[in-house]
């Protein structure tokens, strides 16, 4: 079979919950291994090997948790909105599950970004919190996540909940460019980007490499925890189908 036919076919097969449940087990395991390796090397590089910053001293090291979680908070929201949109348009069950399983992880990363930022801000700016554009828009993002989760739990029918949530996520996507460009649009207390200038990053290599490792660790952590959540959700979705009953053993009384 040539590739042009095989690839779409595989993609459709991936959308089938049973097939996804089977292969995600293997993927999840390997991704977690990568996550642990990146996390350990990234932390060692960031906390031990990287030199202290000439202005901020050792306290800049919290960046290795703060920056990846801030990136992840935006990234997961985009994943949530896009997969929600896919679920809305093509009614792909898996996309709906991805969207609703992403929300709690995204909310956690957003909270982490805010909390580490506050801990960083105390020695650097002399205050836990300032009402500047980036902090405020990140806080709005947290409330968008929480609103999404609240909406999900308000419906009894999961599929209706997923589609209603997708609309909310798509409306809230307006906030993403505001967060991303807030540092450039308004001159605020939060420092400008130092990494995204790819041609000439204003960050030294010995600091950059641990940061990238930590980013990869956060991303793989997201993927592996997302897969775990998806697998649970699939079992709940399909609890009446024969393959789940077979999997769980017939003696167990599956509720819901």
């Amino acid at each position: 079979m040539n590739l042009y036919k095989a690839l779409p076919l595989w993609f459709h097969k991936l959308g089938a919950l049973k097939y996804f449940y089977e292969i995600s087990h293997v993927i999840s395991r390997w991704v977690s291994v990568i996550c642990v390796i990146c996390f350990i090397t990234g932390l060692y590089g960031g906390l031990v090997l990287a030199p202290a910053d000439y202005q901020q001293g050792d306290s800049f090291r919290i960046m290795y948790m703060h920056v990846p979680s801030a990136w992840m908070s935006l990234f997961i929201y985009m994943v949530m909105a896009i997969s929600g949109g896919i679920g809305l348009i093509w009614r792909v069950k898996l996309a709906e599950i991805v969207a609703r399983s992403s929300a709690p992880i995204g909310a956690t990363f957003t909270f982490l970004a805010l909390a580490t930022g506050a801990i960083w801000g105390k020695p650097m700016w002399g205050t836990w919190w300032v009402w500047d554009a980036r902090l405020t828009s990140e806080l709005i993002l947290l409330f968008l996540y929480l609103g999404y989760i609240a909406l999900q739990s308000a419906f009894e029918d999961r599929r209706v909940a997923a589609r209603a949530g997708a609309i909310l996520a798509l409306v809230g996507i307006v906030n993403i460019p505001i967060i991303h460009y807030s540092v450039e649009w308004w001159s605020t207390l939060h420092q400008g980007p130092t990494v995204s200038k790819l041609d000439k990053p204003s960050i030294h290599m010995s600091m950059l490499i641990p940061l990238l490792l930590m980013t990869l660790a956060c991303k793989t952590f997201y993927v592996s925890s997302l897969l775990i959540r998806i697998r649970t959700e699939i079992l709940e979705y399909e609890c009446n189908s024969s393959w789940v009953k077979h999997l769980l053993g017939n003696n167990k009384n599956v509720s819901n």
Partner: protein
Amino acid sequence: MNEYIKIFFIILQRDLTLVFRNKAEFINPLMFFVIVIILFPLAFGSDATLLKQLTSGIIWVTALLATVLSLETIFRTDFEDGSIEQLILARYPLTLMVSAKVTAHWIIFGLPLIFIAVLTGFILSLSSQTMFALFFTLLLSTPVLSLIGAITVALTIGLRGGMLLSLLILPLYMPVLIFSMLAVQNATAGQSISAEIYFLAGILVLALTLAPITTAAALRIRLS
């Protein structure tokens, strides 16, 4: 095309008539707005300089809360008596009819709110530039509040608890609040407010074009 315009005005007229027959629904959120604003001078004392600094923010936040309270009226009665289903089944675009309903909500709530806000501004001794900025930001933002609000109301219609509605809606209102308050602060400091006004106008155009489509989609999902 002519037919569509006619449908728009028929629904607009229907909603306005319904509200004027049942005036409590239309007056209560506005009463709430005035009463909450009056609470603040009572709480803070009648120090004129302090009030001057706080008043525009108080008016704005209270306007948001009153909007959230008033929003349920857009679809609630229609949902209860089943007219929403009839609208969805009708052969005219739902987007059009939804925009007529949102327009009706703005006329019965947003428009009076702007004038009441300016009046309360007089009582709370705002300067004329601040009042001017307050008027313009409210004029540009109240339609946005109605439009965005309609989406979330459509999503949560029939679910118990107005609490969920306010949880979903207030984060979406925050950007509008931020830009409006920037404009008001600039006006108080005697600076130009054109940048914020343009931004609010941009948000209004975006909401005006996309929100009715989204609201229609949300209603379809909710009643599927």
